[in-house]
Every structure is written in structure tokens, then in C-alpha cells.
């Protein structure tokens, strides 16, 4: 009969907590960067300058359609070849933010497209500039629409961050994996890991709902 070794988990908890810390650190920084990248992409795409939009489009497709793990290795093992030596954590953050940023930019684009052109015309008709219209009128409305899928992207980011353990970043997955393999505590460590990841993503889901409720437009039909 298999015995679940709780004692082992408790003993390794200090290591696990360190791993959690690093996972949270990487996820939070990458989320902020990813959102900034997404905004930049969405904005550059609206400039309608052909070379810019073509390059952005190419970058989006390349990033979206290749495995994150490969991108991770390109930054980690490839960049030193051109003289850029970055720490593993930096590589992890760069690849996660670019990868997630591209997905968020697509979400953002869909959100912006769903705002009626008349809103844009009304804002411009009042004398607001293009940037003011984006910042004050169309973006705030699009943001409200995309909060649920945006939350999903941040949840994906937390889960995807486990891949950085492949390039020797001692994040939560690394700690879990090491314990599992070194001490043959597969079941204990992976179950524990799953529960912790669920707790982390659960926090994001909770706040996503909260923000959605908070930003709800009064009287708007169809909002949940």
C-alpha cells in the first residue's frame, strides 16, 4: 500500500517557498511587461505605416506559432552567440513577456475592433486627438470587454513560467521536480506543485472577477 509522505513535503517546504517566490517574481514582472508589449503592438498596428505593420505582423506570427520552449532556448543559448549574455531569469522574463504579450495584443485588437467606429468619430468630433481618443475613449471601453480573456492570458503566463526551469531557473517547478526525482517523491511533489499552481492562478482569477465587477458600466445590458 502506497503511503503519501506528508512529512517529506513539510520538510521541503522552505525550498518550495523559495520556488514560489521566484515563480511569483517572474510572473508579475512578465505580466506587466507583456501588457506593455501588447499595448505597443496594438498601437503600432494602428499607425497604418506599411513597413511597421508588416514587421509587427511577422513578429506576432513567429512568436504565436512556435513553442515557448524553443523561444526560451533561442534567447538563452542563441543570444550569447551574438555577444549578449543574459542571466537565465532575464531570458525567462523576456521570452515569457514577448510570448504572452503577442497573445494579449491579439485579445486587445479584438477588443478595440468591437468598439463602434461612431465612438471614435464622436471623440474626434469633439476635438480630441487620436491618442487622447485611444487613451480616454476606445481603450477604456475595450479593456472592460477583454478583462476575462486577459485574465486567462495571465493565468497561462503563470503556468507557462514553469518552463523556465529548463534553463536552470530555480522556480517552483524546478524545486518540485528536483524533489520528485532526487528523492523519488513523484506523487507528493507533483500533487503539491499542482495545488500551489492552482492557488496562484486562483488568485488571478479572483482578482479578474473583482476588477470586472468594479469596472462594470452601470446600466449596460449584457454585462455580467
Amino acid at each position, binding site marked *: 500500500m502506497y503511503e503519501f509522505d506528508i512529512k517529506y513535503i513539510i520538510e521541503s517546504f522552505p525550498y518550495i517557498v523559495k520556488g514560489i517566490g521566484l515563480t511569483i517574481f517572474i510572473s508579475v514582472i512578465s505580466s506587466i511587461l507583456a501588457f506593455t508589449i501588447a499595448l505597443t503592438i496594438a498601437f503600432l498596428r494602428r499607425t497604418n505605416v506599411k513597413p511597421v505593420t508588416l514587421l509587427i505582423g511577422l513578429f506576432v506570427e513567429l512568436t504565436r506559432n512556435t513553442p515557448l520552449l524553443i523561444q526560451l532556448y533561442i534567447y538563452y543559448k542563441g543570444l550569447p552567440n551574438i555577444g549578449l549574455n543574459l542571466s537565465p531569469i532575464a531570458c525567462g522574463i523576456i521570452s515569457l513577456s514577448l510570448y504572452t504579450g503577442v497573445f494579449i495584443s491579439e485579445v486587445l485588437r479584438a477588443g478595440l475592433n468591437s468598439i*463602434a467606429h461612431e465612438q471614435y468619430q464622436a471623440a474626434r*468630433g*469633439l476635438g480630441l486627438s487620436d491618442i487622447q481618443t485611444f487613451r480616454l475613449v476606445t481603450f*477604456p*471601453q475595450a479593456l472592460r470587454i477583454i478583462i476575462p480573456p486577459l485574465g486567462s492570458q495571465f493565468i497561462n503566463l503563470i503556468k507557462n513560467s514553469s518552463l523556465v526551469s529548463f534553463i536552470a531557473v530555480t522556480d517552483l517547478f524546478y524545486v518540485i521536480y528536483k524533489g520528485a526525482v532526487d528523492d523519488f517523491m513523484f506523487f507528493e511533489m507533483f500533487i503539491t506543485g499542482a495545488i500551489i499552481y492552482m492557488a496562484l492562478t486562483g488568485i488571478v482569477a479572483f482578482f479578474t472577477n473583482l476588477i470586472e465587477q468594479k469596472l462594470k458600466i452601470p446600466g449596460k445590458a449584457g454585462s455580467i
Partner: protein
Amino acid sequence: MIKVKNIYKSYKNIDVLIDVSAQVEKGQIVAVIGPSGCGKSTFLKCINGLEKVSKGRIFIDDEEVTAPDTNLNKIRSEVGILFQQFNLFPHMSVKENIMLAPVKVKKIPKDDAEQMARALLEKVGMLDHAHKYPEQLSGGQAQRVAIARSLAMEPKIMLFDEPTSALDPKMTNEVLDTMKQLAQDGMTMIVVTHEISFAREVANKIMFFSQGRLVEESVPDKFFNNPQSEITREFLRSVLKLEV
């Protein structure tokens, strides 16, 4: 005040406006009428540059709207435009909708803008709804707020793009009354409308568009009782059931 000189507008191969020239004086109230798709809304949006003309020139006072280096934001802050669908910003309260452009474009202090917003809401009879959101208003209320929002920029000219087409008769009257009040205050107005009674009573000039052309232009009395063009007569007979 407004001079439109031989403007053309086409989308791909469709000619929306063909060689339209017109002039509007200060304080004039112009009703623009004509069948759907005749180009009257496009004509209106060309005046403040929301649509770009393909050819021709438009002047407001001495500024050329159609010049490539013109500051359209400045022109638009002086020329208000009202839409059929009101287009209030749904994520802002009524008061915030009105304060937005004065604060962000004219850089008026918030307190002053708020006072102005209250005064304008009072004027259009919507002061009690200042804290509501657009989705909580009826169509007539929303359009009156939209009028207040335009007036907050203290425009020289107001353009109306079928302001009552989405409203039921009661709400239509609410909005028309507000517009009549504006007319009495001496506002220069160009109104694209299907409200023939408004055109008759309030306007002092009618422009009739058909298939992208400005077919006829005259004072209401002459336009409705003694139209010059056969196209106008046909329109008045078939659409408005008038005996002409």
C-alpha cells in the same frame, strides 16, 4: 461663414458627392434633406473633416478644412457634431461626458468645467441625471446630453446628423425643442433631417440632395410650395405626400 467649393467624395468607385458647392452664413439654420443614401450625412461630415473630400475645398471663416496642414482638432473643437446614435461614451457618467473635451482639449480647470456642465445640463433639462450613465437614459435624454456635450466646447457651428431618427415621437419633440432653443440663441446650425416640420418651421434655408448632388437650395416657403427642380417635386410628392 462656411464655404463649400466644388467638393467631390467617392469611395472606391462609388460617387457619394458630386460637385457640391454651398454657403452658410452666421446664424443661419440649414436643413439638409433628401432620400437615404443621397450623400447628405457625408456632406455634413466633410464640413468638420470627419470624412475627407476627394476633391474641392471647404472653408470655415478663413480657415480651410481641406488643407493638408490644417489643425483639424482645433476646427472640430469649434464645430460641434451630433449623431443619430448619440454616441455618448458609455463608460463615463453624464457629467463626465460633458466635461471630457473642455478639460482635455481646451484645458479648462475641472471645477469650471463642472460648473459649465451643470449649467448646460440645466439648459437641456437633464440636471437631475448628471450622475447617471448613458445606458441608463432614454434615447431622447441621451441626445439632449449629447447636445450639452457639444455645447460645452462653445462651438461656432453645430452639425446634426439625423438627430431624431432613432427616437420615438415624444422623444423627438424633446430634442427638437432643445434644438429650437439653440436656434433662437443664434447658433449656426446645419441639420440633416427627415423632420419636415422642423425644416419648415425652424430652418431658414433648405438644401435638397439627390444622388450625391445638391439639387436645390432655397428658403423653406419656396422649397415646399414652389420647388424648381422636377427631382424635388417628385421627392416631395412621393415621400412626403405633398401636393406640388
